[in-house]
């Protein structure tokens, strides 16, 4: 369970996220969509405890991030858009490190299945410096999945993956949600979000313009039968027109 309440993050005079509130529930995949600079990555980094918001609260599995960041982060996994693994650690050493950090019980018994699932078995003892971009992405995801976190944040999760890996990843994300995890995906790939996510949050200029299932959002925007792409452009362009008209 993830709860974000009136989140505001500023960089100097620039407001990246303004009063953002939403909830994501166990078993649900919430898609975060928005143009470049909308505040998606900032939102994810605030939830991951990397950035400190000026206002608002974030709760992860009922634990307020500001009160006990270590406990809150233990229930959370964050996979950045371009993960940089430790060059001097092998794939399996990354898993061992994660197991130690998150106190995973009997981790070695889970390595094989996880590496198999993410097609990393052959790279098991290879240093991360020798991995391709897609493999690095998979390694970060393997580290996240190893500990069965309650909340998983993906920032552009399918960048750099081949078609087969994309399908594997989609299946894995769905499986984690079905197993009870709360999954939050930030992506530019509207097709992916439309097919995979249960609910969608449209973020623009740091503000939530719409939250709900695709049908619920359609009802307030482009009309029934419209694709997410059409809905997305309709909502964001209307917001821009209103903002320009008001200035």
């Amino acid at each position, binding site marked *: 369970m993830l709860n974000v309440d009136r989140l505001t993050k500023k960089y100097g005079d620039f407001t990246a996220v303004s009063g953002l509130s939403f909830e994501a529930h166990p078993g649900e995949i919430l898609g975060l969509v928005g143009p470049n600079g909308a505040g998606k990555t900032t939102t994810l980094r605030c939830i991951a*405890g*990397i950035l400190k918001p000026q206002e608002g609260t974030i709760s992860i599995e009922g634990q307020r991030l500001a009160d006990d960041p270590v406990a809150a982060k*233990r229930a959370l996994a964050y996979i950045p858009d371009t993960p940089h693994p430790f060059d001097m650690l092998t794939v399996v050493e990354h898993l061992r*490190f994660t197991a130690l950090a998150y106190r995973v019980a009997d981790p070695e018994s889970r390595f094989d299945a996880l590496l198999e699932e993410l097609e990393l078995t052959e790279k098991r003892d290879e240093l*991360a410096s020798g991995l391709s971009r897609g493999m690095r992405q998979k390694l970060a995801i393997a580290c996240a999945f190893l500990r069965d976190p309650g909340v998983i944040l993906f920032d552009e999760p399918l960048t750099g993956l081949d078609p087969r890996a994309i399908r594997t990843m989609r299946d894995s994300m769905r499986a984690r949600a079905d197993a009870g995890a709360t999954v939050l995906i930030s992506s530019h790939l509207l097709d992916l979000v439309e097919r995979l996510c249960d609910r969608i949050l449209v973020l623009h200029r740091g503000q939530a313009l719409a939250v709900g299932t695709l049908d619920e959002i359609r009802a307030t925007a482009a009309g029934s039968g419209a694709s997410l792409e059409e809905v997305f452009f309709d909502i964001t362009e209307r917001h821009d027109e209103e903002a320009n008209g008001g200035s």
Partner: protein
Amino acid sequence: MIHPALWYLVRTRVRNRVLQWLRKLKTPGGFFGGIVLVFVVIGAFFIGDWGGVTITQRQAIFTTLLGFLLWSGILGGLGQRGLVYAPADLDFLFPGPFARRQLVIYQFAMQYVAAVVMSIVYLLLFGGRFLPHPVWFGLGAFLCQVTAAHLGTAAAELSMLVADAVFRRVRAVTVVLLVVVTITAVSLVVAGIAGWGNIPAQLDRAMSGDVLRVLLFPAVQATELAVVSDWGARLTALGSLLACVVASFLLVVWIPADVVEGSFAASRKLQRRVEDLKRGVVTKGKGGASAPLPRSPWMQGAGAVFWLNWLSLRRQLRAVLGGLFVVVMIFSIFAVRSDDTSRLDGSMLGLLAMVPLWMHLPIGFRLPRDQLAAMRNLPTSRTRIAAALLSVPVLVPFVLQVIGLTLFAAIGVLPPALALLALPAYLAAAATLLTIEAIFSLRKPHANAVNVLQAMAQLITQMLALVPGFATLLGVRMATGDMHAGLAAGALVQGLIAGVLLTTLGRQFQERELPGLS
């Protein structure tokens, strides 16, 4: 105290780094680099005589060196808001279940490892023969560096607590101070080690002043350890250093700064700078930095490759200036000696030390694979392309060396002109050989898996490439009695060899298949 996972991370990273370094010695580049390193260390160990410099003067010189490390750390910390972590740390540790203090301790652990390595380097280079108790010097240098790391971190934390406007003013001042401190300290240490004039005596006098002794307290105690013989004084110095370590650590823990967000921003900024530099982007945004189309007909065809390399070089001016600084330092340390034999040895060592510097400039054949492939497909002779690619990497060290030598000529200390005259030809020969090897290596799935024999063969070939030039120099000099004629003839022969190798390179570049590139 340190989280078990972070301790595992430190151990594994260090172990794998050492193993990788050992494995790298099997590659031609690594083997060659190792040989150069051994030469430099041995050279530093045996060249020169510090007989005229007293023990207290030596102590003052090393106090200056350690004091510089201390204050450059503090000033550097004041100039940045946050600690600098590796990209992997940001992705795996920052969102992880680690408290602020554990992240700082982890950073310290990595710095302690670096401090151990640096202390061994100081011990090998200086302490072993210049100070009475080298092992104690190594220990003192380590503790002083640990204190410097702590104080640098504390300074960075303090920077996070002040307002933006205050920080910007502080940073401007610290940058100026850092430059002044660096130039002053490095010049003094080099001049002291080289035995220039009465610098050692002046440093010794300066270090006896109360203000400096307080400002450089950990450094003073570290070098005190290296010279005192009675256990009472030794334990006092050691206790003082340990107190510095503990007090500075407590200071870091006590300052209530949020290192996570500040360090994330500082590290990302540095990460972007490094990535930009790797891509050759140094100037961007303001004012537009696009170079106009060159009008010279020489810049058509293969000349365009030269132009590309030249632009890349111009935009990495800082790296070149850093290179210039290194050149001056190398010649200060090795070439400025009291007798001609030492000067010759020193200049040869300086020459060897230039090679890794030149190899690290991201120009020439050290281009990304896709760019290399694009070069191959240009509609002009590949021999010319190869020559154009090599011209800038050869030219740059040559110019740096000319500047370095000119500086020393200006003060009446000119190392043998041979190094100056033969350097471009030598570098062309060495660069060509390395590049041919690189082209061959690209065919292998694992370019690093090259055996030692191949590396030795490459090294011997490079050395042999110099023999005809030397032989010609000596022969012409003996025949004519004219040193200048000998030098000119030697350089000419060396140039011819470089030309032959260059032609070979062009052919290889043209004929060899480069899978995945073309």
